[in-house]
């Protein structure tokens, strides 16, 4: 974001008045707010959201901690550069709807990001409190969620202004965060946008992956509704490259295509016994539960509810799976991870919540084989004990097997969560685009434009497994540059 613009906003009278209203010393003495949570004993048995959200008093209290810095370093930690002090100071003066509006200037899904962003690695890691005071950062994520929820519950939702229709048809492949934010921005500029989604529900990972105890479906529905009100069309059960081909889209007059098809292909470890019944990918487990509601007795989709469940991996996906298993009645729910807790890619809050819920952590363990009972169901797993060796290329210390040190553990369900690869559908079916050996689509990083000038891409299909906010940022960037491209090529 433009520095001059930030400065001008900061110089507005109301912000100056607020800054003067309280001494910085008093602000920094305030303790960071604690997020009210459902107690672990109770939430282990429900699918309700764990974090309850801040009250108005709590939010206003926390907003006083923010110093409205001259150089708001927090913004540099946010991939979409939300004007963080502006929205927080709006909360401080009680203008919550204004705060929500500020969020929407740059973020298409604030209620989502406020819940699932790894804030401790992004905005909050760059907060003045973290960098200079060595204190707990301002709770930017909690405040973001608060403002977005407040607006949603207020009934006074601002539907972004939409420019007059320009009649230009744009196709979006995939309804995950990348596709949704792209669609929103293009609609704002007056384009005629259609989102094609392969599944029968919209939202991508927000729907089929992240469980309701972290991100209620109602919130995803709400955000999609806003897009519908802005005129975005959605077509479910339509696989681009299968149901409708690249050339069909062109023939039907779509002038631009944005690919946000995600990283939906699950990785396996290729170890003996991995195809036994009871061993499945994290995507299968979460899809059965979240998309197909298999745990609901009324649902036709079956699921085996394990009592001794091991989840292999240490990312957000693994935490979501293991905590889901716990809620579905697992007496023993374990994380098996080959490095130590320090290297776990999951959000710190999720690890903390998992521990409170009684999840066991078998770090420095790696499965090497599974064995079945007489019916072909997994019965036990052999784990290799590991130790940390020298740092690898990524700077993380790499795990090495401790020769001969193995242990058998009884399990009746294993969920493999060792990463995902880019969805191969589009790379295989589109001609002209460039694809890396990892299966990601090659784009110009500044414009998100692919080798085919009318095709743009973003999110996990470009980055491999990344985050919601990065996917959204890509969608926005692509919208801006597609608009520029189409505007300068009007004559075609």
């Amino acid at each position, binding site marked *: 974001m433009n520095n001059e613009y930030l400065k001008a906003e900061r110089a507005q009278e109301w912000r100056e008045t607020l800054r003067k209203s309280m001494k910085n010393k008093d602000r920094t003495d305030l303790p960071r707010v604690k997020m009210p949570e459902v107690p672990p004993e109770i939430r282990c048995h429900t699918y309700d959201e764990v974090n309850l959200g801040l009250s108005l008093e709590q939010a206003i209290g926390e907003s006083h901690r923010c110093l409205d810095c001259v150089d708001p370093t927090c913004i540099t930690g946010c991939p979409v550069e939300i004007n963080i002090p502006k929205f927080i100071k709006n909360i401080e003066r009680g203008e919550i709807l204004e705060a929500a509006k500020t969020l929407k200037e740059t973020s298409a899904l604030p209620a989502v990001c406020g819940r699932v962003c790894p804030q401790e690695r992004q905005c909050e890691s760059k907060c003045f409190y973290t960098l200079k005071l060595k204190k707990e950062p301002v709770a930017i994520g909690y405040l973001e969620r608060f403002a977005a929820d407040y607006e949603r519950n207020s009934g006074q939702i601002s539907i972004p202004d939409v420019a007059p229709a320009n009649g230009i048809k744009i196709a979006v492949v995939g309804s995950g965060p990348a596709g949704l934010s792209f669609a929103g921005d293009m609609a704002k500029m007056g384009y005629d946008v259609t989102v094609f989604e392969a599944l029968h529900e919209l939202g991508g990972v927000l729907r089929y992956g992240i469980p309701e105890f972290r991100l209620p479906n109602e919130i995803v529905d709400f955000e999609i509704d806003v897009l519908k009100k802005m005129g975005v069309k959605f077509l479910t059960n339509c696989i681009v490259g299968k149901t409708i081909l690249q050339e069909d889209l062109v023939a039907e007059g779509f002038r631009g295509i944005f690919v946000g098809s995600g990283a939906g292909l699950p990785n396996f470890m*290729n170890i003996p016994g991995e195809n036994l019944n009871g061993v499945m990918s994290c*995507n299968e487990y979460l899809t059965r539960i979240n998309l197909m509601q298999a745990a609901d007795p009324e649902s036709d*989709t079956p699921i085996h509810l394990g009592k001794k469940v091991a989840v292999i991996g240490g990312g957000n996906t693994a935490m979501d799976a293991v905590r889901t298993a716990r809620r579905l009645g697992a007496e023993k729910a374990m994380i098996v991870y080959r490095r130590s807790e320090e290297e776990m890619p999951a959000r710190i809050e999720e690890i903390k919540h998992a521990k409170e819920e009684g999840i066991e952590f078998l770090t420095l363990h790696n499965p090497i084989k599974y064995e079945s009972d007489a019916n072909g169901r997994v019965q036990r797993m052999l784990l290799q004990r590991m130790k940390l060796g020298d740092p690898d290329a990524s700077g993380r210390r790499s795990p090495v097997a401790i020769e001969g040190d193995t242990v058998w553990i009884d399990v009746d369900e294993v969920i493999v969560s060792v990463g995902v690869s880019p969805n191969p559908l589009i790379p295989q079916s589109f001609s002209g685009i460039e694809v890396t050996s990892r299966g990601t689509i090659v784009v110009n990083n500044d414009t998100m434009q692919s080798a085919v000038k009318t095709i743009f891409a973003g999110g996990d299909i470009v980055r491999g497994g990344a985050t919601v906010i990065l996917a959204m940022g890509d969608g926005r960037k692509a919208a801006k540059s597609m608009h520029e491209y189409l505007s300068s090529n009007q004559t075609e």
Partner: protein
Amino acid sequence: MNKIVGKEGLSDKVVKFEIEAPLIAKSRKPGHFVIVRVGKKGERVPYTIAAADPQKGTITLVIQRVGKSSEKLCQLNIGDYVTDLVGPLGKATHIENFGTVLCAGGGVGVAPMLPIIEGMKKAGNKVISVLAARTKELIILEEQVRKFSDEVIIMTDDGSYGEKGLITNGVENVIQREKVDLCVTIGPAIMMKFVSELTKKYDVPTIASLNTIMVDGTGMCGACRVTVGGKTRFVCVDGPEFDAHQVDFDEMLMRLKAYN
């Protein structure tokens, strides 16, 4: 939502549907399948596209009642809608002039075989079809199969129609009688396993169309995985057809029982 425009019982257990799906009717090829969901609590279930009419914008599915989800679909009538229908999925059958092609279809497997029989015939092959079922009433689509086959051999377990015996008997007779360049087999997993073992003995290249358990059908979950030639493959995106001699049928049979 896709409207059902035709329904016909082929046997006690088997129903043929014609369903509106204009985009799929246009883009599908032999070997492709769709995923169907009936009702908001319904399961996503795969069915092969047995035929399509791009002019009318419809596809034909042939469904065998085996359990909850297939039964739910078979309860629907003309004018009703299926909740969701997505496709065409999977890789299309590799069709070319191989010479003599033997198509071995068991039970409802004859339905997905139909477009392959037609395709193989049109590509200039001599097509010999072996249809098998437990008893006469369960032999379906015989007339349509005859239309594109040079010869049709019918096998029933109880001898109530055609010859008495298993599908493997019919297949073996043909292989012993003349040179077969390719065998295609579709039916219950256990049947495909025995056909495959037989053709392996005679060195006849064989393709099997696998009907594993699926969820999304787009390569996202891995529920459909099978071991082929020692490697894990996803039936919905890498298949459904594979070199039968490389398929680990025992593992597949075990995996089909995951929710029994």
